[in-house]
Protein backbone atom coordinates (compact mmCIF):
# COMPACT_ATOMS: atom_id res chain seq x y z
CA UNK A 1 0.00 0.00 0.00
CA UNK A 2 2.81 2.41 0.85
CA UNK A 3 4.36 1.68 -2.54
CA UNK A 4 1.12 2.76 -4.21
CA UNK A 5 1.12 5.94 -2.09
CA UNK A 6 4.70 6.69 -3.11
CA UNK A 7 3.92 6.19 -6.77
CA UNK A 8 0.82 8.39 -6.58
CA UNK A 9 2.76 11.07 -4.74
CA UNK A 10 5.49 11.03 -7.37
CA UNK A 11 2.92 11.17 -10.13
CA UNK A 12 1.04 14.12 -8.63
CA UNK A 13 4.26 16.01 -7.93
CA UNK A 14 5.03 16.01 -11.64
CA UNK A 15 1.65 17.27 -12.80
CA UNK A 16 -1.92 17.26 -11.59
CA UNK A 17 -3.09 15.48 -14.72
CA UNK A 18 -1.00 12.48 -13.75
CA UNK A 19 -3.97 10.81 -12.04
CA UNK A 20 -5.80 10.52 -15.34
CA UNK A 21 -2.72 9.06 -17.03
CA UNK A 22 -2.34 6.51 -14.29
CA UNK A 23 -6.03 5.65 -14.63
CA UNK A 24 -5.57 5.21 -18.38
CA UNK A 25 -2.59 2.92 -17.84
CA UNK A 26 -4.48 0.78 -15.33
CA UNK A 27 -7.46 0.66 -17.67
CA UNK A 28 -5.29 -0.57 -20.52
CA UNK A 29 -3.86 -3.28 -18.28
CA UNK A 30 -7.34 -4.42 -17.25
CA UNK A 31 -8.40 -4.48 -20.89
CA UNK A 32 -5.45 -6.75 -21.66
CA UNK A 33 -6.54 -9.07 -18.83
CA UNK A 34 -10.03 -9.15 -20.28
CA UNK A 35 -8.67 -10.01 -23.73
CA UNK A 36 -6.48 -12.76 -22.32
CA UNK A 37 -9.34 -14.34 -20.38
CA UNK A 38 -11.81 -14.15 -23.24
CA UNK A 39 -9.57 -15.45 -25.99
CA UNK A 40 -8.09 -18.05 -23.67
CA UNK A 41 -11.53 -19.45 -23.03
CA UNK A 42 -12.31 -19.51 -26.75
CA UNK A 43 -9.02 -21.23 -27.56
CA UNK A 44 -9.49 -23.72 -24.77
CA UNK A 45 -12.92 -24.83 -25.84
CA UNK A 46 -11.74 -24.98 -29.47
CA UNK A 47 -8.90 -27.31 -28.46
CA UNK A 48 -11.27 -29.55 -26.54
CA UNK A 49 -13.75 -29.82 -29.37
CA UNK A 50 -11.00 -30.55 -31.89
CA UNK A 51 -9.78 -33.29 -29.61
CA UNK A 52 -13.27 -34.77 -29.47
CA UNK A 53 -13.84 -34.62 -33.23
CA UNK A 54 -10.67 -34.14 -35.26
CA UNK A 55 -12.42 -34.09 -38.63
CA UNK A 56 -14.23 -30.82 -37.86
CA UNK A 57 -10.87 -29.04 -37.57
CA UNK A 58 -11.53 -26.58 -40.39
CA UNK A 59 -14.96 -25.45 -39.18
CA UNK A 60 -13.81 -25.06 -35.60
CA UNK A 61 -10.71 -23.12 -36.60
CA UNK A 62 -12.69 -20.63 -38.67
CA UNK A 63 -15.27 -20.06 -35.94
CA UNK A 64 -12.59 -19.71 -33.30
CA UNK A 65 -10.86 -16.98 -35.30
CA UNK A 66 -14.14 -15.12 -35.80
CA UNK A 67 -15.07 -15.30 -32.12
CA UNK A 68 -11.58 -14.16 -31.12
CA UNK A 69 -11.80 -11.15 -33.46
CA UNK A 70 -15.18 -10.19 -32.00
CA UNK A 71 -13.91 -10.38 -28.42
CA UNK A 72 -10.86 -8.34 -29.41
CA UNK A 73 -13.22 -5.73 -30.81
CA UNK A 74 -14.65 -5.15 -27.36
CA UNK A 75 -11.16 -4.98 -25.86
CA UNK A 76 -10.00 -2.46 -28.42
CA UNK A 77 -12.94 -0.28 -27.47
CA UNK A 78 -11.44 -0.04 -23.96
CA UNK A 79 -7.97 0.57 -25.40
CA UNK A 80 -9.26 3.42 -27.55
CA UNK A 81 -10.87 5.04 -24.51
CA UNK A 82 -7.53 4.84 -22.67
CA UNK A 83 -5.73 6.35 -25.67
CA UNK A 84 -8.26 9.17 -25.76
CA UNK A 85 -7.55 9.91 -22.11
CA UNK A 86 -3.84 10.01 -22.80
CA UNK A 87 -3.91 12.12 -25.93
CA UNK A 88 -6.93 14.39 -25.63
Amino acid at each position, binding site marked *: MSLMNTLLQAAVDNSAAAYSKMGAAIGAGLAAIGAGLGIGKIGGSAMESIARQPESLGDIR*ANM*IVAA*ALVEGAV*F*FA*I*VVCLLILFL
Partner: protein
Amino acid sequence: MMGQSKKMPDFITLFTMSSVKKTFVTFVFSAFLIVKIFANHAVSEVEMASGHPESTHETSHSHDKTDKYDPGKMIMDHVTDAHDWHLWGEGHKAVSISLPVILYVKSKGLICFSSVHFQHGHAAYEGFQLNDKGTVVWEDQKNTEAIYDISITKNVLAMMLAVFALMIITIGMARSYKKRQGKAPKGFHNLVEPLVLFIRDDVARASIGHKADKYLPMLLSIFFFIFVNNIFGLIPIFPGGANVTGNIAVTMVLAVIVFLTVNLQANKYYWKHIFLPDVPVWMYVIIIPIEVLGVVLKPFVLMLRLFANITAGHIIILGFFSLIFIFGAMKPGLGFAVSPLSVAFTVFMSLLELLVAFLQAFVFTLLTAIYIGSAIEEHHH
Protein backbone atom coordinates in the same frame (compact mmCIF):
# COMPACT_ATOMS: atom_id res chain seq x y z
CA MET B 1 3.74 -23.83 -71.67
CA MET B 2 7.28 -25.20 -71.78
CA GLY B 3 8.18 -23.76 -75.16
CA GLN B 4 6.90 -20.26 -74.35
CA SER B 5 9.58 -17.63 -74.01
CA LYS B 6 9.55 -15.39 -70.94
CA LYS B 7 6.84 -12.83 -71.66
CA MET B 8 5.58 -9.78 -69.81
CA PRO B 9 3.42 -10.81 -66.80
CA ASP B 10 -0.28 -10.74 -67.65
CA PHE B 11 -1.30 -7.93 -65.40
CA ILE B 12 0.76 -5.45 -67.37
CA THR B 13 -1.03 -6.27 -70.62
CA LEU B 14 -3.64 -3.96 -69.15
CA PHE B 15 -1.68 -1.22 -70.77
CA THR B 16 -1.65 -1.64 -74.53
CA MET B 17 1.65 0.20 -74.83
CA SER B 18 4.77 -1.48 -76.11
CA SER B 19 7.44 -2.37 -73.60
CA VAL B 20 9.75 0.38 -74.85
CA LYS B 21 7.12 3.04 -74.25
CA LYS B 22 6.37 1.58 -70.82
CA THR B 23 10.01 1.74 -69.78
CA PHE B 24 10.21 5.31 -71.03
CA VAL B 25 7.10 6.38 -69.10
CA THR B 26 8.33 4.68 -65.92
CA PHE B 27 11.70 6.39 -66.29
CA VAL B 28 10.16 9.83 -66.84
CA PHE B 29 7.80 9.39 -63.88
CA SER B 30 10.61 8.27 -61.56
CA ALA B 31 12.86 11.10 -62.73
CA PHE B 32 10.06 13.59 -62.07
CA LEU B 33 9.49 12.21 -58.59
CA ILE B 34 13.19 12.25 -57.71
CA VAL B 35 13.68 15.78 -59.05
CA LYS B 36 10.61 16.96 -57.12
CA ILE B 37 11.88 15.48 -53.87
CA PHE B 38 15.25 17.13 -54.15
CA ALA B 39 13.77 20.38 -55.41
CA ASN B 40 11.55 20.55 -52.32
CA HIS B 41 14.57 19.81 -50.21
CA ALA B 42 16.51 22.61 -51.90
CA VAL B 43 13.62 25.08 -51.61
CA SER B 44 13.29 24.34 -47.89
CA GLU B 45 17.05 24.76 -47.41
CA VAL B 46 17.13 28.07 -49.29
CA GLU B 47 14.17 29.45 -47.39
CA MET B 48 15.66 28.32 -44.10
CA ALA B 49 19.03 29.84 -44.93
CA SER B 50 17.70 33.23 -46.06
CA GLY B 51 15.70 33.62 -42.85
CA HIS B 52 12.15 32.59 -43.83
CA PRO B 53 11.41 35.17 -46.52
CA GLU B 54 7.80 34.07 -46.89
CA SER B 55 7.02 33.75 -43.21
CA THR B 56 5.66 36.33 -40.85
CA HIS B 57 6.20 36.73 -37.10
CA GLU B 58 3.66 34.06 -36.17
CA THR B 59 5.89 31.06 -36.94
CA SER B 60 5.99 28.29 -34.36
CA HIS B 61 9.40 27.84 -32.82
CA SER B 62 9.10 24.28 -31.64
CA HIS B 63 12.25 23.41 -33.59
CA ASP B 64 14.85 23.68 -30.81
CA LYS B 65 18.30 22.25 -31.15
CA THR B 66 17.76 19.72 -28.32
CA ASP B 67 18.98 16.27 -29.26
CA LYS B 68 16.62 14.53 -26.83
CA TYR B 69 14.94 11.69 -28.65
CA ASP B 70 11.16 11.89 -28.35
CA PRO B 71 9.67 8.46 -29.05
CA GLY B 72 6.10 9.67 -28.56
CA LYS B 73 6.50 12.30 -31.26
CA MET B 74 8.18 9.88 -33.65
CA ILE B 75 5.40 7.32 -33.21
CA MET B 76 2.67 9.93 -33.62
CA ASP B 77 4.35 11.26 -36.78
CA HIS B 78 4.35 7.82 -38.32
CA VAL B 79 0.82 6.89 -37.34
CA THR B 80 -1.04 10.11 -38.18
CA ASP B 81 -1.73 11.88 -41.44
CA ALA B 82 0.46 14.73 -42.75
CA HIS B 83 0.69 17.21 -45.59
CA ASP B 84 4.06 15.89 -46.73
CA TRP B 85 5.43 12.39 -47.09
CA HIS B 86 8.65 12.22 -45.11
CA LEU B 87 11.12 9.81 -46.71
CA TRP B 88 14.38 10.01 -44.79
CA GLY B 89 16.56 12.41 -42.83
CA GLU B 90 15.98 14.48 -39.73
CA GLY B 91 15.38 18.17 -39.08
CA HIS B 92 16.92 20.43 -41.70
CA LYS B 93 18.16 17.57 -43.81
CA ALA B 94 14.79 15.87 -44.02
CA VAL B 95 13.84 14.69 -47.48
CA SER B 96 10.13 14.56 -48.10
CA ILE B 97 7.61 14.78 -50.88
CA SER B 98 5.53 17.91 -50.33
CA LEU B 99 1.94 17.21 -51.21
CA PRO B 100 -0.56 19.76 -52.52
CA VAL B 101 -2.67 21.63 -49.97
CA ILE B 102 -6.16 22.27 -51.32
CA LEU B 103 -8.36 24.47 -49.18
CA TYR B 104 -11.82 25.90 -49.67
CA VAL B 105 -12.78 29.07 -47.84
CA LYS B 106 -16.10 30.74 -48.59
CA SER B 107 -14.64 34.21 -48.82
CA LYS B 108 -11.63 33.27 -50.95
CA GLY B 109 -12.80 30.25 -52.89
CA LEU B 110 -10.52 27.35 -53.75
CA ILE B 111 -6.89 27.81 -52.76
CA CYS B 112 -4.14 25.41 -53.83
CA PHE B 113 -0.45 25.45 -53.07
CA SER B 114 2.34 23.05 -52.28
CA SER B 115 2.91 22.25 -48.63
CA VAL B 116 6.62 23.02 -49.06
CA HIS B 117 5.71 26.62 -48.17
CA PHE B 118 4.71 25.49 -44.67
CA GLN B 119 8.29 24.23 -44.09
CA HIS B 120 7.11 21.44 -41.77
CA GLY B 121 5.07 23.84 -39.68
CA HIS B 122 7.63 26.61 -39.23
CA ALA B 123 6.21 29.13 -41.68
CA ALA B 124 2.87 30.65 -42.59
CA TYR B 125 1.70 31.12 -46.16
CA GLU B 126 -1.15 33.22 -47.55
CA GLY B 127 -2.64 33.57 -44.08
CA PHE B 128 -2.61 29.85 -43.27
CA GLN B 129 -0.28 27.90 -41.05
CA LEU B 130 -0.01 24.43 -39.54
CA ASN B 131 -0.77 24.07 -35.86
CA ASP B 132 1.19 21.57 -33.82
CA LYS B 133 -1.28 18.81 -34.64
CA GLY B 134 -0.61 19.32 -38.34
CA THR B 135 -4.00 20.81 -39.20
CA VAL B 136 -4.25 23.90 -41.41
CA VAL B 137 -5.46 26.89 -39.36
CA TRP B 138 -5.65 30.61 -39.86
CA GLU B 139 -2.47 32.49 -39.08
CA ASP B 140 -4.57 35.19 -37.47
CA GLN B 141 -5.94 33.44 -34.37
CA LYS B 142 -9.03 35.64 -34.28
CA ASN B 143 -10.29 34.50 -37.65
CA THR B 144 -12.97 31.85 -37.15
CA GLU B 145 -14.09 31.26 -40.72
CA ALA B 146 -14.33 27.58 -41.58
CA ILE B 147 -11.50 26.13 -43.65
CA TYR B 148 -12.53 23.07 -45.66
CA ASP B 149 -9.35 21.07 -46.08
CA ILE B 150 -9.56 18.77 -49.10
CA SER B 151 -5.82 18.40 -49.62
CA ILE B 152 -4.02 15.43 -51.04
CA THR B 153 -2.45 14.29 -47.80
CA LYS B 154 -0.18 11.31 -47.18
CA ASN B 155 -3.09 8.96 -46.53
CA VAL B 156 -4.94 10.11 -49.64
CA LEU B 157 -1.90 9.53 -51.82
CA ALA B 158 -1.28 6.15 -50.19
CA MET B 159 -4.89 5.15 -50.82
CA MET B 160 -4.56 6.19 -54.46
CA LEU B 161 -1.39 4.11 -54.84
CA ALA B 162 -3.00 1.09 -53.22
CA VAL B 163 -6.09 1.42 -55.41
CA PHE B 164 -3.88 1.73 -58.47
CA ALA B 165 -2.04 -1.46 -57.54
CA LEU B 166 -5.37 -3.15 -56.90
CA MET B 167 -6.70 -2.03 -60.29
CA ILE B 168 -3.67 -3.46 -62.06
CA ILE B 169 -4.16 -6.77 -60.26
CA THR B 170 -7.89 -7.15 -60.67
CA ILE B 171 -8.32 -5.76 -64.18
CA GLY B 172 -5.34 -7.81 -65.28
CA MET B 173 -6.91 -10.87 -63.74
CA ALA B 174 -10.23 -10.29 -65.47
CA ARG B 175 -8.53 -10.00 -68.85
CA SER B 176 -6.33 -13.01 -68.24
CA TYR B 177 -9.31 -15.16 -67.27
CA LYS B 178 -11.13 -14.14 -70.43
CA LYS B 179 -8.10 -14.95 -72.53
CA ARG B 180 -7.42 -18.29 -70.87
CA GLN B 181 -10.90 -19.77 -70.82
CA GLY B 182 -10.89 -23.12 -69.05
CA LYS B 183 -7.19 -23.06 -68.27
CA ALA B 184 -5.56 -22.59 -64.86
CA PRO B 185 -4.35 -19.09 -63.95
CA LYS B 186 -0.73 -18.22 -64.48
CA GLY B 187 1.72 -16.57 -62.10
CA PHE B 188 0.54 -13.93 -59.67
CA HIS B 189 -3.10 -14.67 -60.23
CA ASN B 190 -2.57 -18.02 -58.54
CA LEU B 191 -2.16 -16.02 -55.34
CA VAL B 192 -5.31 -13.96 -55.74
CA GLU B 193 -7.65 -16.69 -56.97
CA PRO B 194 -7.87 -18.64 -53.66
CA LEU B 195 -8.69 -15.41 -51.83
CA VAL B 196 -11.50 -14.55 -54.23
CA LEU B 197 -12.91 -18.07 -54.08
CA PHE B 198 -12.61 -18.08 -50.30
CA ILE B 199 -14.65 -14.89 -50.03
CA ARG B 200 -17.18 -16.15 -52.54
CA ASP B 201 -17.73 -19.60 -51.03
CA ASP B 202 -16.99 -19.40 -47.33
CA VAL B 203 -18.02 -15.83 -46.64
CA ALA B 204 -20.59 -14.60 -49.12
CA ARG B 205 -22.50 -17.74 -50.09
CA ALA B 206 -22.28 -19.17 -46.57
CA SER B 207 -23.68 -16.04 -44.92
CA ILE B 208 -26.03 -14.60 -47.51
CA GLY B 209 -27.33 -17.68 -49.26
CA HIS B 210 -28.44 -17.85 -52.85
CA LYS B 211 -28.58 -14.10 -53.47
CA ALA B 212 -24.89 -13.73 -52.58
CA ASP B 213 -23.63 -13.02 -56.08
CA LYS B 214 -25.38 -9.67 -56.14
CA TYR B 215 -23.29 -8.48 -53.17
CA LEU B 216 -20.06 -10.14 -54.22
CA PRO B 217 -18.51 -7.10 -55.94
CA MET B 218 -19.00 -5.03 -52.82
CA LEU B 219 -17.69 -7.71 -50.46
CA LEU B 220 -14.65 -8.40 -52.62
CA SER B 221 -13.93 -4.68 -52.94
CA ILE B 222 -14.10 -4.20 -49.19
CA PHE B 223 -11.91 -7.22 -48.55
CA PHE B 224 -9.20 -6.37 -51.06
CA PHE B 225 -9.21 -2.66 -50.24
CA ILE B 226 -8.66 -3.33 -46.54
CA PHE B 227 -6.17 -6.14 -47.16
CA VAL B 228 -4.01 -4.23 -49.65
CA ASN B 229 -4.00 -1.07 -47.54
CA ASN B 230 -3.06 -3.08 -44.45
CA ILE B 231 -0.18 -4.73 -46.30
CA PHE B 232 1.03 -1.43 -47.75
CA GLY B 233 1.01 0.02 -44.25
CA LEU B 234 3.53 -2.60 -43.14
CA ILE B 235 6.10 -1.80 -45.86
CA PRO B 236 8.54 0.69 -44.32
CA ILE B 237 9.54 2.69 -47.44
CA PHE B 238 7.96 4.90 -49.99
CA PRO B 239 4.82 3.50 -51.58
CA GLY B 240 4.01 1.83 -48.27
CA GLY B 241 4.32 3.02 -44.73
CA ALA B 242 1.24 5.24 -44.57
CA ASN B 243 -1.25 4.22 -41.94
CA VAL B 244 -4.38 4.30 -44.13
CA THR B 245 -6.68 1.76 -42.48
CA GLY B 246 -5.51 3.03 -39.12
CA ASN B 247 -7.08 6.38 -39.95
CA ILE B 248 -10.46 6.51 -38.31
CA ALA B 249 -11.91 8.60 -41.13
CA VAL B 250 -11.19 5.85 -43.66
CA THR B 251 -12.71 3.12 -41.52
CA MET B 252 -15.66 5.37 -40.76
CA VAL B 253 -16.40 5.69 -44.47
CA LEU B 254 -16.23 1.90 -44.87
CA ALA B 255 -18.60 1.50 -41.92
CA VAL B 256 -21.00 4.07 -43.38
CA ILE B 257 -21.00 2.14 -46.66
CA VAL B 258 -21.89 -1.05 -44.77
CA PHE B 259 -24.58 0.78 -42.79
CA LEU B 260 -26.19 2.19 -45.93
CA THR B 261 -26.04 -1.12 -47.79
CA VAL B 262 -27.56 -3.13 -44.97
CA ASN B 263 -30.36 -0.72 -44.23
CA LEU B 264 -31.23 0.17 -47.80
CA GLN B 265 -31.27 -3.48 -48.89
CA ALA B 266 -33.24 -4.70 -45.90
CA ASN B 267 -36.61 -6.29 -46.42
CA LYS B 268 -39.56 -5.79 -44.10
CA TYR B 269 -38.75 -8.82 -41.93
CA TYR B 270 -35.52 -7.11 -40.87
CA TRP B 271 -37.40 -4.04 -39.69
CA LYS B 272 -40.05 -6.24 -38.14
CA HIS B 273 -37.41 -8.00 -36.06
CA ILE B 274 -36.17 -4.66 -34.82
CA PHE B 275 -39.41 -2.85 -34.07
CA LEU B 276 -41.86 -5.68 -33.45
CA PRO B 277 -39.78 -8.60 -32.23
CA ASP B 278 -41.21 -12.00 -31.35
CA VAL B 279 -41.18 -11.49 -27.59
CA PRO B 280 -43.82 -10.86 -24.90
CA VAL B 281 -45.08 -7.27 -25.08
CA TRP B 282 -43.70 -6.23 -21.71
CA MET B 283 -40.17 -6.88 -23.02
CA TYR B 284 -40.56 -4.35 -25.84
CA VAL B 285 -39.31 -1.60 -23.50
CA ILE B 286 -35.97 -3.37 -23.15
CA ILE B 287 -35.53 -5.08 -26.49
CA ILE B 288 -36.48 -2.28 -28.90
CA PRO B 289 -33.92 0.29 -27.64
CA ILE B 290 -31.23 -2.39 -27.75
CA GLU B 291 -32.16 -3.37 -31.29
CA VAL B 292 -32.34 0.23 -32.51
CA LEU B 293 -28.99 0.96 -30.92
CA GLY B 294 -27.65 -2.17 -32.55
CA VAL B 295 -28.47 -0.83 -36.01
CA VAL B 296 -25.98 1.99 -35.51
CA LEU B 297 -23.63 0.22 -33.14
CA LYS B 298 -22.72 -2.71 -35.41
CA PRO B 299 -21.07 -0.63 -38.15
CA PHE B 300 -19.56 1.60 -35.45
CA VAL B 301 -17.86 -1.39 -33.85
CA LEU B 302 -16.66 -2.53 -37.29
CA MET B 303 -14.99 0.84 -37.74
CA LEU B 304 -13.43 0.83 -34.29
CA ARG B 305 -12.17 -2.76 -34.53
CA LEU B 306 -10.27 -2.18 -37.76
CA PHE B 307 -8.88 1.19 -36.70
CA ALA B 308 -7.69 0.05 -33.28
CA ASN B 309 -6.17 -3.23 -34.48
CA ILE B 310 -4.09 -1.67 -37.24
CA THR B 311 -3.04 1.44 -35.29
CA ALA B 312 -2.12 -0.59 -32.22
CA GLY B 313 0.01 -2.93 -34.33
CA HIS B 314 1.88 -0.04 -35.94
CA ILE B 315 2.44 1.63 -32.57
CA ILE B 316 3.87 -1.57 -31.13
CA ILE B 317 6.29 -2.07 -34.02
CA LEU B 318 7.38 1.58 -33.90
CA GLY B 319 7.77 1.32 -30.12
CA PHE B 320 10.14 -1.62 -30.48
CA PHE B 321 12.22 0.35 -32.98
CA SER B 322 12.23 3.35 -30.65
CA LEU B 323 13.84 1.19 -27.97
CA ILE B 324 17.05 1.27 -29.99
CA PHE B 325 17.13 5.06 -30.05
CA ILE B 326 16.03 5.48 -26.45
CA PHE B 327 18.88 3.26 -25.29
CA GLY B 328 21.22 4.91 -27.78
CA ALA B 329 20.43 8.31 -26.31
CA MET B 330 21.51 7.09 -22.88
CA LYS B 331 24.82 5.61 -24.03
CA PRO B 332 25.92 5.07 -27.65
CA GLY B 333 26.96 1.47 -27.09
CA LEU B 334 23.67 0.49 -25.50
CA GLY B 335 21.83 1.34 -28.68
CA PHE B 336 23.90 -1.11 -30.65
CA ALA B 337 23.56 -3.73 -27.95
CA VAL B 338 19.80 -3.64 -27.82
CA SER B 339 19.32 -3.55 -31.59
CA PRO B 340 19.44 -7.35 -32.27
CA LEU B 341 16.77 -7.85 -29.63
CA SER B 342 14.72 -4.98 -30.96
CA VAL B 343 14.97 -6.19 -34.54
CA ALA B 344 13.99 -9.71 -33.47
CA PHE B 345 10.93 -8.40 -31.65
CA THR B 346 10.02 -6.20 -34.58
CA VAL B 347 10.27 -9.11 -37.03
CA PHE B 348 8.02 -11.18 -34.77
CA MET B 349 5.51 -8.35 -34.45
CA SER B 350 5.59 -7.75 -38.19
CA LEU B 351 4.74 -11.40 -38.85
CA LEU B 352 1.89 -11.07 -36.39
CA GLU B 353 0.81 -7.92 -38.16
CA LEU B 354 0.73 -9.79 -41.46
CA LEU B 355 -1.71 -12.21 -39.87
CA VAL B 356 -3.71 -9.33 -38.42
CA ALA B 357 -3.76 -7.57 -41.81
CA PHE B 358 -5.47 -10.55 -43.41
CA LEU B 359 -7.59 -11.35 -40.37
CA GLN B 360 -9.05 -7.88 -39.97
CA ALA B 361 -9.92 -7.68 -43.66
CA PHE B 362 -11.55 -11.11 -43.39
CA VAL B 363 -13.48 -10.27 -40.22
CA PHE B 364 -14.75 -6.97 -41.64
CA THR B 365 -15.94 -8.73 -44.79
CA LEU B 366 -17.44 -11.64 -42.86
CA LEU B 367 -19.41 -9.39 -40.54
CA THR B 368 -20.61 -7.29 -43.46
CA ALA B 369 -21.80 -10.47 -45.17
CA ILE B 370 -23.54 -11.63 -42.00
CA TYR B 371 -25.30 -8.28 -41.57
CA ILE B 372 -26.38 -8.27 -45.22
CA GLY B 373 -27.56 -11.85 -44.85
CA SER B 374 -29.65 -11.00 -41.82
CA ALA B 375 -31.11 -8.01 -43.65
CA ILE B 376 -32.31 -9.88 -46.71
CA GLU B 377 -33.24 -13.11 -45.00
CA GLU B 378 -36.63 -14.50 -45.89
CA HIS B 379 -39.22 -15.30 -43.27
CA HIS B 380 -38.80 -18.81 -41.84
CA HIS B 381 -41.60 -20.24 -39.79
